């Protein structure tokens, strides 16, 4: 299963892009990355789910935990790019009432009043491929 996390910085916001499925096997990696970001003093996070094709309650729970960590350090977390079926889960669970969802990154940047062009990668993409089950 392909799962990757990529972080870039934009005007003080960390843009954390997730690729793959967000569930029991992968969500801990997202949690670990958020803990690292917030621990490093970056508590303003844009979580880009454009390339996430599946989320379940474990993935949603990690997003809630990430929001708590960000706000606990005086920051915030917003979600961008969620596909319709992913967005529907935020709505069904009423998480859309506590987490701001934006259709895409430019809309979020405009709404958050983040100005300036381009983003600056802060590290290399982490491309983690889980071995196929061997029975």
């Amino acid at each position, binding site marked *: 299963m392909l799962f990757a996390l990529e972080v870039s910085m934009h005007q003080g916001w960390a843009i954390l892009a997730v690729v793959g499925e967000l*569930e029991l096997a992968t969500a801990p990696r997202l949690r670990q990355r958020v803990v690292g970001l917030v621990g490093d003093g970056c508590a303003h996070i844009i979580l880009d789910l454009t390339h996430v094709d599946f989320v379940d*309650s*474990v993935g949603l729970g990690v997003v809630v935990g990430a929001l708590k960590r960000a706000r606990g350090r005086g920051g915030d977390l917003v979600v961008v790019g969620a596909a319709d079926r992913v967005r529907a889960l935020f709505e069904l669970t009423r*998480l859309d009432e506590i987490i701001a969802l934006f259709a895409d990154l430019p809309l979020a940047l405009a709404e958050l009043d983040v100005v300036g062009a381009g983003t600056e990668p802060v590290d290399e993409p982490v491309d983690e491929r889980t*071995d196929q089950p061997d029975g």
Partner: protein
Amino acid sequence: MGEVRLEIPARAEYLGLARQVVAAAAAIESTFRDERIDDLRVVVSEATTNAIEAHADLDRDERIVIRCNLDAEQIEVEVVDRGSGFDPSGLDAMPDPERPDRLALESGLGIPLLRVLADEAEIRSGEHGTAVRLVVYRVPRPAS
């Protein structure tokens, strides 16, 4: 269609395989709507995640069993584990987003999601294991 039966080790890396097999079984019936298969993937993920977590204290050789039966109108899935069981009563409601400690709750969404997205959901749990029976219809049932 006959029964499709899958046994998996209780390990997180097999969760995706469980979703793939059940979704592929449903897709055999070409009239199953895509959004229904999306619902099916979520509810299977929730039930199988619970089963994997229920096996945390068991021998790693203990398997989780997933059975599917498909017909023209619906798919029935049963996820069976050998964990120590749990009391499902009181777990049906989505956490209120306005409760002051909402952000402290990273769990508690699985059973409510399962109840909302499956057309039928039955949880039988005891000290020797849990069986979750889920039914997803080919088309959504009309809103009541």
